[in-house]
Protein backbone atom coordinates (compact mmCIF):
# COMPACT_ATOMS: atom_id res chain seq x y z
CA UNK A 1 0.00 0.00 0.00
CA UNK A 2 1.18 3.45 -0.75
CA UNK A 3 0.01 7.01 -1.33
CA UNK A 4 0.17 8.92 -4.60
CA UNK A 5 0.04 12.58 -5.62
CA UNK A 6 -2.54 13.81 -8.14
CA UNK A 7 -0.15 15.89 -10.26
CA UNK A 8 -2.83 18.00 -11.98
CA UNK A 9 -3.92 19.42 -8.59
CA UNK A 10 -0.48 19.70 -6.96
CA UNK A 11 0.83 23.26 -6.41
CA UNK A 12 4.40 21.92 -6.04
CA UNK A 13 4.85 23.59 -2.69
CA UNK A 14 7.17 20.80 -1.58
CA UNK A 15 5.84 20.55 1.97
CA UNK A 16 5.15 16.81 1.60
CA UNK A 17 8.72 16.07 0.53
CA UNK A 18 9.90 17.84 3.65
CA UNK A 19 7.50 16.04 5.97
CA UNK A 20 7.73 12.49 4.57
CA UNK A 21 9.48 10.33 7.20
CA UNK A 22 10.52 7.72 4.62
CA UNK A 23 12.07 10.00 1.96
CA UNK A 24 9.57 8.54 -0.47
CA UNK A 25 8.69 11.82 -2.19
CA UNK A 26 10.95 13.39 -4.80
CA UNK A 27 10.64 15.97 -7.55
CA UNK A 28 10.96 14.11 -10.86
CA UNK A 29 10.85 15.96 -14.15
CA UNK A 30 7.94 18.35 -13.73
CA UNK A 31 6.15 16.87 -10.74
CA UNK A 32 6.37 15.37 -7.28
CA UNK A 33 6.04 11.61 -7.13
CA UNK A 34 5.73 9.08 -4.30
CA UNK A 35 7.98 6.03 -4.53
CA UNK A 36 5.59 3.18 -3.69
CA UNK A 37 8.51 0.99 -2.61
CA UNK A 38 9.47 3.46 0.11
CA UNK A 39 6.04 4.75 1.20
CA UNK A 40 4.82 3.17 4.44
CA UNK A 41 1.67 5.34 4.72
CA UNK A 42 3.44 6.49 7.92
CA UNK A 43 2.34 3.35 9.76
CA UNK A 44 4.08 2.97 13.11
CA UNK A 45 5.43 6.53 12.89
CA UNK A 46 2.47 8.92 12.87
CA UNK A 47 -1.29 8.72 13.31
CA UNK A 48 -1.89 10.42 9.97
CA UNK A 49 -0.19 10.32 6.59
CA UNK A 50 2.16 13.30 6.78
CA UNK A 51 1.92 14.21 3.08
CA UNK A 52 -1.87 14.31 3.17
CA UNK A 53 -1.89 16.22 6.47
CA UNK A 54 0.33 19.02 5.27
CA UNK A 55 -0.95 19.22 1.67
CA UNK A 56 -2.75 22.55 1.09
CA UNK A 57 -4.96 21.11 -1.67
CA UNK A 58 -7.75 18.70 -0.70
CA UNK A 59 -7.74 15.16 -2.18
CA UNK A 60 -4.30 15.52 -3.74
CA UNK A 61 -2.21 13.14 -1.60
CA UNK A 62 -4.44 10.05 -1.70
CA UNK A 63 -4.18 6.27 -1.39
CA UNK A 64 -2.83 4.84 -4.65
Amino acid at each position, binding site marked *: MAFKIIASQCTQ*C*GACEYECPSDAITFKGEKYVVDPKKCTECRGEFDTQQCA*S*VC*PVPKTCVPA
Partner: protein
Amino acid sequence: MPQPVKQLETTRKGSLDGALRAAKSGGCAPSSCGLSAPDDIDPAIWERIKDHPCFSEEAHHYFARMHVAVAPACNIQCNYCNRKYDCANESRPGVASEKLTPDQALRKVIAVANEVPQLSVLGIAGPGDACYDWKKTKATFERVAREIPDIKLCISTNGLALPDHVDELAEMNVDHVTITINMVDPEIGAKIYPWIFYRHRRYTGIEAARILHERQMLGLEMLIKKDILTKINSVMIPGVNDAHLVEVNKWVRDRGAFMHNVMPLISEPSHGTYYGLTGQRGPQPLELEALHDRLEGGAKLMRHCRQCRADAVGLLGDDRRREFTRDHISSDVTYNASKRHAYRQLVALECGDHLAARKDAITAVTSAESDGQLHVAVTTKGGGRINEHFGHATELQVYVVSQKGINLVGNRKIGQYCLGGWGEEATLYSIISALEGIDILLCAKIGDSPKKRLAEAGVRATDAFGYDYIETAIGALYAAEFGVKPLVATA
Protein backbone atom coordinates in the same frame (compact mmCIF):
# COMPACT_ATOMS: atom_id res chain seq x y z
CA MET B 1 15.80 77.22 2.50
CA PRO B 2 17.76 74.20 1.32
CA GLN B 3 19.53 74.27 -2.02
CA PRO B 4 17.29 73.00 -4.80
CA VAL B 5 18.67 69.63 -5.81
CA LYS B 6 18.38 68.25 -9.30
CA GLN B 7 15.35 66.07 -9.44
CA LEU B 8 15.98 62.52 -8.41
CA GLU B 9 15.75 60.07 -11.27
CA THR B 10 13.33 57.36 -10.38
CA THR B 11 12.88 56.46 -14.00
CA ARG B 12 14.53 53.48 -15.64
CA LYS B 13 17.16 55.38 -17.52
CA GLY B 14 18.87 58.64 -16.80
CA SER B 15 22.43 59.24 -15.90
CA LEU B 16 23.12 58.76 -12.24
CA ASP B 17 26.56 60.21 -12.62
CA GLY B 18 25.26 63.43 -14.13
CA ALA B 19 22.62 63.71 -11.46
CA LEU B 20 25.18 63.05 -8.79
CA ARG B 21 27.52 65.72 -10.13
CA ALA B 22 24.65 68.18 -10.23
CA ALA B 23 23.66 67.24 -6.72
CA LYS B 24 27.19 67.54 -5.41
CA SER B 25 27.43 71.06 -6.73
CA GLY B 26 24.63 71.81 -4.25
CA GLY B 27 27.50 71.83 -1.82
CA CYS B 28 26.48 69.66 1.14
CA ALA B 29 28.14 66.42 2.04
CA PRO B 30 26.24 63.19 1.56
CA SER B 31 25.24 61.58 4.81
CA SER B 32 22.45 59.24 5.75
CA CYS B 33 18.98 59.76 4.37
CA GLY B 34 17.37 62.76 6.01
CA LEU B 35 20.00 64.84 7.72
CA SER B 36 18.24 64.05 10.95
CA ALA B 37 15.52 61.69 12.05
CA PRO B 38 11.92 62.90 11.83
CA ASP B 39 10.74 64.32 15.15
CA ASP B 40 8.53 61.40 16.17
CA ILE B 41 11.13 58.62 15.74
CA ASP B 42 13.93 57.60 18.09
CA PRO B 43 17.24 58.29 16.25
CA ALA B 44 18.57 54.80 16.99
CA ILE B 45 15.48 53.21 15.41
CA TRP B 46 15.61 55.66 12.49
CA GLU B 47 19.13 54.45 11.75
CA ARG B 48 17.71 50.94 11.29
CA ILE B 49 14.63 51.81 9.22
CA LYS B 50 15.71 54.81 7.17
CA ASP B 51 16.26 52.67 4.07
CA HIS B 52 13.60 50.01 4.61
CA PRO B 53 10.60 50.92 2.46
CA CYS B 54 8.19 48.71 4.41
CA PHE B 55 9.18 50.02 7.84
CA SER B 56 9.45 53.72 7.02
CA GLU B 57 7.03 55.85 5.04
CA GLU B 58 9.86 58.25 4.26
CA ALA B 59 12.10 55.45 2.93
CA HIS B 60 9.47 54.05 0.62
CA HIS B 61 9.79 57.09 -1.62
CA TYR B 62 13.44 56.29 -2.29
CA PHE B 63 14.26 52.67 -1.58
CA ALA B 64 13.20 49.45 -3.19
CA ARG B 65 12.72 45.95 -1.88
CA MET B 66 12.69 42.65 -3.63
CA HIS B 67 11.11 39.40 -2.60
CA VAL B 68 12.48 36.06 -3.74
CA ALA B 69 9.95 33.26 -3.90
CA VAL B 70 12.12 30.49 -2.44
CA ALA B 71 9.72 29.28 0.26
CA PRO B 72 6.62 27.75 -1.34
CA ALA B 73 5.81 25.23 1.41
CA CYS B 74 3.25 26.34 3.98
CA ASN B 75 2.06 25.00 7.31
CA ILE B 76 -1.31 26.72 7.62
CA GLN B 77 -4.32 27.48 5.45
CA CYS B 78 -5.83 30.96 5.49
CA ASN B 79 -9.26 31.58 4.04
CA TYR B 80 -7.99 34.54 2.01
CA CYS B 81 -5.19 32.59 0.35
CA ASN B 82 -5.08 30.25 -2.59
CA ARG B 83 -1.64 29.44 -3.90
CA LYS B 84 -2.94 27.17 -6.62
CA TYR B 85 -3.44 29.86 -9.22
CA ASP B 86 -1.01 32.44 -10.41
CA CYS B 87 -1.87 35.07 -12.92
CA ALA B 88 0.87 37.40 -14.13
CA ASN B 89 -1.50 40.36 -13.90
CA GLU B 90 -2.48 39.72 -10.35
CA SER B 91 -0.85 41.46 -7.48
CA ARG B 92 -1.53 40.10 -4.05
CA PRO B 93 0.43 38.44 -1.27
CA GLY B 94 1.11 34.75 -1.62
CA VAL B 95 1.32 34.88 -5.38
CA ALA B 96 4.49 34.20 -7.33
CA SER B 97 5.06 33.29 -10.94
CA GLU B 98 8.21 31.27 -10.55
CA LYS B 99 9.62 29.54 -7.54
CA LEU B 100 13.39 29.75 -7.16
CA THR B 101 16.08 27.60 -5.60
CA PRO B 102 18.48 29.43 -3.23
CA ASP B 103 21.12 29.52 -6.00
CA GLN B 104 18.71 30.95 -8.55
CA ALA B 105 17.60 33.46 -5.93
CA LEU B 106 21.18 34.59 -5.36
CA ARG B 107 21.69 35.20 -9.08
CA LYS B 108 18.43 37.12 -9.24
CA VAL B 109 19.36 39.33 -6.27
CA ILE B 110 22.71 40.17 -7.85
CA ALA B 111 21.08 40.95 -11.21
CA VAL B 112 18.57 43.26 -9.52
CA ALA B 113 21.21 44.91 -7.32
CA ASN B 114 23.25 45.70 -10.44
CA GLU B 115 20.28 47.24 -12.26
CA VAL B 116 18.04 48.75 -9.56
CA PRO B 117 20.12 51.23 -7.59
CA GLN B 118 17.28 51.82 -5.13
CA LEU B 119 17.48 48.22 -3.87
CA SER B 120 18.05 48.10 -0.11
CA VAL B 121 16.08 45.13 1.18
CA LEU B 122 15.77 41.45 0.37
CA GLY B 123 12.69 39.82 1.80
CA ILE B 124 11.40 36.28 1.78
CA ALA B 125 7.64 36.26 1.97
CA GLY B 126 6.73 32.86 0.72
CA PRO B 127 4.75 32.23 -1.41
CA GLY B 128 4.34 29.75 1.46
CA ASP B 129 5.86 30.46 4.87
CA ALA B 130 9.48 31.58 5.21
CA CYS B 131 9.94 30.03 8.66
CA TYR B 132 8.30 26.71 7.83
CA ASP B 133 10.32 26.31 4.61
CA TRP B 134 13.31 27.28 6.71
CA LYS B 135 16.12 25.41 4.97
CA LYS B 136 15.57 27.31 1.73
CA THR B 137 15.15 30.65 3.52
CA LYS B 138 18.36 30.16 5.48
CA ALA B 139 20.37 28.96 2.47
CA THR B 140 19.25 31.99 0.45
CA PHE B 141 20.16 34.50 3.17
CA GLU B 142 23.57 32.91 3.76
CA ARG B 143 24.45 33.07 0.07
CA VAL B 144 23.23 36.64 -0.40
CA ALA B 145 24.88 38.00 2.75
CA ARG B 146 28.22 36.63 1.52
CA GLU B 147 27.95 38.44 -1.83
CA ILE B 148 26.15 41.66 -0.87
CA PRO B 149 26.98 42.40 2.77
CA ASP B 150 25.07 45.70 2.99
CA ILE B 151 21.66 44.41 1.92
CA LYS B 152 19.04 44.26 4.65
CA LEU B 153 17.42 40.87 5.17
CA CYS B 154 13.84 40.43 6.25
CA ILE B 155 11.16 37.77 6.38
CA SER B 156 7.41 37.60 6.57
CA THR B 157 5.80 34.70 8.41
CA ASN B 158 2.53 33.46 9.84
CA GLY B 159 4.35 32.88 13.14
CA LEU B 160 3.59 29.18 13.67
CA ALA B 161 7.18 28.01 13.10
CA LEU B 162 8.74 31.34 14.10
CA PRO B 163 9.81 30.48 17.70
CA ASP B 164 11.96 27.62 16.34
CA HIS B 165 14.13 30.01 14.34
CA VAL B 166 14.41 33.30 16.24
CA ASP B 167 17.96 32.52 17.41
CA GLU B 168 19.11 31.77 13.87
CA LEU B 169 17.42 34.93 12.56
CA ALA B 170 19.38 36.97 15.08
CA GLU B 171 22.62 35.18 14.16
CA MET B 172 22.08 35.95 10.47
CA ASN B 173 21.48 39.64 11.29
CA VAL B 174 17.89 39.57 10.06
CA ASP B 175 16.84 42.88 11.53
CA HIS B 176 13.24 43.10 10.31
CA VAL B 177 10.50 40.51 10.69
CA THR B 178 6.84 40.74 9.81
CA ILE B 179 4.26 38.46 11.45
CA THR B 180 0.77 38.25 10.06
CA ILE B 181 -1.57 38.34 13.07
CA ASN B 182 -5.28 38.51 12.31
CA MET B 183 -6.66 37.70 15.75
CA VAL B 184 -5.85 37.28 19.43
CA ASP B 185 -9.06 35.37 20.09
CA PRO B 186 -9.18 31.75 18.85
CA GLU B 187 -12.98 32.00 18.36
CA ILE B 188 -12.32 34.59 15.67
CA GLY B 189 -9.24 32.75 14.42
CA ALA B 190 -11.33 29.67 13.69
CA LYS B 191 -13.25 31.71 11.10
CA ILE B 192 -10.02 32.72 9.35
CA TYR B 193 -7.88 29.57 9.51
CA PRO B 194 -9.50 26.25 8.58
CA TRP B 195 -6.41 24.25 9.63
CA ILE B 196 -2.79 24.33 10.70
CA PHE B 197 -0.07 21.67 10.51
CA TYR B 198 1.94 21.57 13.72
CA ARG B 199 4.31 18.95 15.13
CA HIS B 200 3.28 16.32 12.59
CA ARG B 201 -0.45 16.80 13.01
CA ARG B 202 -3.19 18.71 11.31
CA TYR B 203 -5.32 20.70 13.76
CA THR B 204 -8.64 22.37 12.93
CA GLY B 205 -11.12 24.80 14.46
CA ILE B 206 -10.59 26.54 17.79
CA GLU B 207 -7.71 24.26 18.72
CA ALA B 208 -5.79 25.23 15.57
CA ALA B 209 -6.40 28.94 16.14
CA ARG B 210 -5.36 28.66 19.80
CA ILE B 211 -2.04 26.99 18.95
CA LEU B 212 -1.38 29.53 16.20
CA HIS B 213 -2.17 32.45 18.55
CA GLU B 214 0.13 31.12 21.30
CA ARG B 215 2.98 30.54 18.85
CA GLN B 216 2.54 34.01 17.33
CA MET B 217 2.74 35.69 20.72
CA LEU B 218 5.72 33.56 21.77
CA GLY B 219 7.49 34.40 18.51
CA LEU B 220 6.77 38.11 18.92
CA GLU B 221 8.10 38.15 22.49
CA MET B 222 11.25 36.26 21.45
CA LEU B 223 11.92 38.69 18.60
CA ILE B 224 11.53 41.71 20.87
CA LYS B 225 13.91 40.12 23.37
CA LYS B 226 16.48 39.81 20.58
CA ASP B 227 15.84 43.46 19.63
CA ILE B 228 14.64 42.57 16.13
CA LEU B 229 12.27 45.16 14.67
CA THR B 230 8.90 43.51 14.27
CA LYS B 231 6.02 44.64 12.10
CA ILE B 232 2.57 43.11 12.41
CA ASN B 233 0.40 42.65 9.33
CA SER B 234 -3.33 42.19 9.75
CA VAL B 235 -5.93 41.56 7.09
CA MET B 236 -9.13 43.50 7.69
CA ILE B 237 -12.06 41.13 7.06
CA PRO B 238 -15.35 43.00 7.43
CA GLY B 239 -17.73 41.27 9.84
CA VAL B 240 -15.05 38.76 10.91
CA ASN B 241 -12.18 40.59 12.59
CA ASP B 242 -12.58 44.29 11.72
CA ALA B 243 -13.71 45.43 15.18
CA HIS B 244 -11.35 42.91 16.82
CA LEU B 245 -8.26 44.47 15.21
CA VAL B 246 -8.40 47.23 17.85
CA GLU B 247 -7.71 44.48 20.39
CA VAL B 248 -4.95 43.00 18.20
CA ASN B 249 -3.34 46.44 18.00
CA LYS B 250 -3.31 46.69 21.83
CA TRP B 251 -1.80 43.22 22.24
CA VAL B 252 1.03 43.77 19.81
CA ARG B 253 1.76 47.27 21.06
CA ASP B 254 2.03 45.99 24.64
CA ARG B 255 4.48 43.32 23.49
CA GLY B 256 6.72 45.81 21.73
CA ALA B 257 5.85 45.52 18.03
CA PHE B 258 7.32 48.41 16.08
CA MET B 259 4.54 48.87 13.57
CA HIS B 260 1.05 47.65 12.69
CA ASN B 261 -0.03 47.35 9.08
CA VAL B 262 -3.77 46.82 8.60
CA MET B 263 -4.51 45.81 5.02
CA PRO B 264 -7.83 45.33 3.24
CA LEU B 265 -8.97 41.79 2.39
CA ILE B 266 -8.62 40.99 -1.31
CA SER B 267 -11.34 38.53 -2.25
CA GLU B 268 -12.08 38.42 -5.95
CA PRO B 269 -14.12 35.32 -6.80
CA SER B 270 -11.68 34.60 -9.65
CA HIS B 271 -8.83 34.10 -7.17
CA GLY B 272 -10.58 30.96 -6.00
CA THR B 273 -9.96 31.62 -2.31
CA TYR B 274 -12.50 30.46 0.28
CA TYR B 275 -13.51 34.06 0.96
CA GLY B 276 -13.64 34.81 -2.76
CA LEU B 277 -15.96 31.88 -3.39
CA THR B 278 -18.22 32.47 -0.38
CA GLY B 279 -18.78 36.13 -1.16
CA GLN B 280 -16.93 37.54 1.86
CA ARG B 281 -16.36 41.16 0.82
CA GLY B 282 -13.28 43.28 1.37
CA PRO B 283 -13.56 46.69 3.05
CA GLN B 284 -14.26 49.94 1.19
CA PRO B 285 -11.34 52.43 1.24
CA LEU B 286 -13.23 54.71 3.63
CA GLU B 287 -13.98 51.82 6.03
CA LEU B 288 -10.27 50.99 6.14
CA GLU B 289 -9.44 54.65 6.71
CA ALA B 290 -11.94 54.81 9.58
CA LEU B 291 -10.37 51.74 11.22
CA HIS B 292 -6.90 53.26 10.80
CA ASP B 293 -8.17 56.38 12.53
CA ARG B 294 -9.52 54.31 15.43
CA LEU B 295 -6.09 52.71 15.80
CA GLU B 296 -4.25 56.03 15.99
CA GLY B 297 -2.32 56.34 19.22
CA GLY B 298 -1.69 52.59 19.48
CA ALA B 299 1.16 50.81 17.72
CA LYS B 300 2.54 52.94 14.89
CA LEU B 301 0.52 52.37 11.72
CA MET B 302 1.81 51.64 8.25
CA ARG B 303 -0.37 53.31 5.66
CA HIS B 304 1.73 52.96 2.54
CA CYS B 305 1.53 49.18 2.05
CA ARG B 306 0.84 47.97 -1.49
CA GLN B 307 0.10 44.32 -0.63
CA CYS B 308 2.79 43.16 -2.98
CA ARG B 309 3.45 39.73 -4.41
CA ALA B 310 5.84 37.13 -3.06
CA ASP B 311 8.13 37.92 -6.02
CA ALA B 312 7.85 41.72 -6.21
CA VAL B 313 10.87 43.79 -7.29
CA GLY B 314 11.33 47.55 -7.13
CA LEU B 315 9.94 50.63 -5.43
CA LEU B 316 6.64 49.99 -3.65
CA GLY B 317 4.55 51.61 -6.38
CA ASP B 318 6.54 50.37 -9.34
CA ASP B 319 6.86 46.61 -9.74
CA ARG B 320 9.69 45.62 -12.10
CA ARG B 321 9.54 41.87 -11.55
CA ARG B 322 8.94 41.12 -15.24
CA GLU B 323 12.40 42.44 -16.10
CA PHE B 324 14.02 39.87 -13.84
CA THR B 325 12.36 36.57 -14.63
CA ARG B 326 14.47 33.43 -14.64
CA ASP B 327 15.10 33.42 -18.39
CA HIS B 328 16.36 37.03 -18.25
CA ILE B 329 19.13 36.23 -15.79
CA SER B 330 22.40 34.78 -17.00
CA SER B 331 23.97 31.96 -15.03
CA ASP B 332 27.06 34.00 -14.39
CA VAL B 333 26.51 37.35 -12.68
CA THR B 334 28.91 39.34 -10.56
CA TYR B 335 27.80 41.97 -8.09
CA ASN B 336 28.80 45.50 -8.94
CA ALA B 337 28.15 47.96 -6.13
CA SER B 338 28.71 51.17 -8.08
CA LYS B 339 25.12 52.02 -9.01
CA ARG B 340 23.72 51.38 -5.55
CA HIS B 341 26.53 53.36 -3.98
CA ALA B 342 26.07 56.36 -6.26
CA TYR B 343 22.32 56.33 -5.72
CA ARG B 344 22.73 56.34 -1.95
CA GLN B 345 24.86 59.46 -2.11
CA LEU B 346 22.24 61.14 -4.23
CA VAL B 347 19.39 60.12 -1.93
CA ALA B 348 21.23 61.48 1.08
CA LEU B 349 21.08 64.92 -0.50
CA GLU B 350 17.58 64.72 -1.94
CA CYS B 351 16.08 63.13 1.13
CA GLY B 352 17.32 65.88 3.45
CA ASP B 353 15.88 68.40 1.03
CA HIS B 354 12.56 66.56 0.99
CA LEU B 355 12.36 66.33 4.78
CA ALA B 356 13.00 70.05 5.09
CA ALA B 357 10.38 70.91 2.46
CA ARG B 358 7.94 68.56 4.12
CA LYS B 359 8.51 70.08 7.54
CA ASP B 360 7.97 73.60 6.15
CA ALA B 361 4.73 72.61 4.45
CA ILE B 362 3.38 70.84 7.52
CA THR B 363 4.31 73.74 9.80
CA ALA B 364 2.50 76.16 7.49
CA VAL B 365 -0.62 73.98 7.50
CA THR B 366 -0.72 73.31 11.24
CA SER B 367 -0.11 76.93 12.14
CA ALA B 368 -2.87 78.17 9.82
CA GLU B 369 -6.04 79.43 11.48
CA SER B 370 -8.34 77.13 9.56
CA ASP B 371 -10.43 74.11 10.36
CA GLY B 372 -10.70 73.04 6.72
CA GLN B 373 -9.88 69.51 5.63
CA LEU B 374 -9.13 68.12 2.17
CA HIS B 375 -8.71 64.62 0.80
CA VAL B 376 -6.04 64.83 -1.89
CA ALA B 377 -5.11 62.00 -4.27
CA VAL B 378 -1.63 62.00 -5.82
CA THR B 379 -0.01 60.05 -8.65
CA THR B 380 3.66 59.35 -8.00
CA LYS B 381 6.32 56.89 -9.05
CA GLY B 382 8.61 57.56 -6.12
CA GLY B 383 11.02 60.17 -4.84
CA GLY B 384 8.24 61.88 -2.87
CA ARG B 385 7.18 63.89 -5.91
CA ILE B 386 4.11 64.25 -8.09
CA ASN B 387 5.84 62.68 -11.09
CA GLU B 388 3.37 60.25 -12.65
CA HIS B 389 1.00 61.06 -15.51
CA PHE B 390 -2.67 60.47 -14.81
CA GLY B 391 -2.91 58.11 -17.77
CA HIS B 392 -0.02 55.91 -16.60
CA ALA B 393 -0.97 55.64 -12.95
CA THR B 394 -2.09 52.30 -11.55
CA GLU B 395 -2.62 53.59 -8.04
CA LEU B 396 -3.44 56.76 -6.15
CA GLN B 397 -1.82 57.86 -2.91
CA VAL B 398 -4.42 59.47 -0.67
CA TYR B 399 -3.43 62.27 1.71
CA VAL B 400 -5.55 64.15 4.21
CA VAL B 401 -4.55 67.72 4.98
CA SER B 402 -6.02 69.43 8.03
CA GLN B 403 -4.98 71.03 11.30
CA LYS B 404 -3.35 67.69 12.14
CA GLY B 405 -0.85 68.11 9.30
CA ILE B 406 -0.40 66.37 5.95
CA ASN B 407 -0.82 62.64 6.32
CA LEU B 408 -0.81 59.71 3.96
CA VAL B 409 -3.94 57.71 4.76
CA GLY B 410 -3.79 55.00 2.15
CA ASN B 411 -3.53 54.01 -1.45
CA ARG B 412 -6.14 52.90 -3.94
CA LYS B 413 -5.47 50.75 -6.95
CA ILE B 414 -6.92 51.90 -10.27
CA GLY B 415 -6.91 50.60 -13.81
CA GLN B 416 -4.45 52.31 -16.14
CA TYR B 417 -6.47 54.90 -18.06
CA CYS B 418 -4.13 55.31 -20.99
CA LEU B 419 -3.36 52.12 -22.90
CA GLY B 420 -1.76 52.13 -26.34
CA GLY B 421 -2.18 55.88 -26.63
CA TRP B 422 -5.94 55.88 -26.06
CA GLY B 423 -7.92 56.80 -22.99
CA GLU B 424 -10.23 54.00 -21.92
CA GLU B 425 -13.77 55.16 -21.23
CA ALA B 426 -14.68 52.12 -19.12
CA THR B 427 -11.53 52.51 -17.03
CA LEU B 428 -12.31 56.16 -16.37
CA TYR B 429 -15.65 55.10 -14.98
CA SER B 430 -13.97 52.78 -12.46
CA ILE B 431 -11.35 55.42 -11.59
CA ILE B 432 -14.16 57.84 -10.78
CA SER B 433 -15.63 55.33 -8.34
CA ALA B 434 -12.18 54.78 -6.80
CA LEU B 435 -11.99 58.54 -6.22
CA GLU B 436 -14.89 58.43 -3.77
CA GLY B 437 -14.39 61.04 -1.04
CA ILE B 438 -11.46 62.73 -2.85
CA ASP B 439 -11.61 66.52 -3.33
CA ILE B 440 -8.57 67.11 -5.53
CA LEU B 441 -6.31 64.94 -7.71
CA LEU B 442 -2.71 66.03 -8.30
CA CYS B 443 -0.70 64.53 -11.15
CA ALA B 444 2.28 65.32 -13.37
CA LYS B 445 0.12 65.60 -16.49
CA ILE B 446 -3.55 65.13 -17.31
CA GLY B 447 -5.39 65.58 -20.59
CA ASP B 448 -8.35 67.94 -20.97
CA SER B 449 -10.84 65.20 -21.65
CA PRO B 450 -10.34 63.11 -18.48
CA LYS B 451 -9.96 66.35 -16.50
CA LYS B 452 -13.38 67.48 -17.68
CA ARG B 453 -14.96 64.11 -16.93
CA LEU B 454 -13.47 64.06 -13.43
CA ALA B 455 -14.73 67.60 -12.80
CA GLU B 456 -18.24 66.47 -13.77
CA ALA B 457 -17.90 63.73 -11.15
CA GLY B 458 -16.89 66.29 -8.52
CA VAL B 459 -13.12 65.76 -8.47
CA ARG B 460 -10.87 68.65 -9.41
CA ALA B 461 -7.74 67.37 -11.17
CA THR B 462 -4.70 69.50 -11.87
CA ASP B 463 -1.16 69.13 -13.15
CA ALA B 464 -0.22 72.60 -11.92
CA PHE B 465 2.00 71.04 -9.24
CA GLY B 466 3.66 68.49 -11.54
CA TYR B 467 7.10 67.34 -10.26
CA ASP B 468 6.79 69.22 -6.95
CA TYR B 469 7.22 67.49 -3.62
CA ILE B 470 3.89 66.01 -2.56
CA GLU B 471 3.69 67.86 0.76
CA THR B 472 4.81 71.18 -0.76
CA ALA B 473 2.04 70.95 -3.35
CA ILE B 474 -0.60 69.96 -0.81
CA GLY B 475 0.52 72.77 1.50
CA ALA B 476 0.19 75.33 -1.29
CA LEU B 477 -3.17 73.88 -2.23
CA TYR B 478 -4.39 74.16 1.35
CA ALA B 479 -3.23 77.77 1.51
CA ALA B 480 -5.08 78.62 -1.70
CA GLU B 481 -8.19 76.74 -0.64
CA PHE B 482 -8.62 78.16 2.85
CA GLY B 483 -6.99 81.55 2.35
CA VAL B 484 -4.07 81.03 4.70
CA LYS B 485 -0.57 82.36 4.21
CA PRO B 486 0.96 80.56 1.22
CA LEU B 487 4.37 78.93 1.26
CA VAL B 488 7.36 79.79 -0.85
CA ALA B 489 7.92 76.75 -3.05
CA THR B 490 11.29 75.17 -2.38
CA ALA B 491 11.88 72.63 -5.09
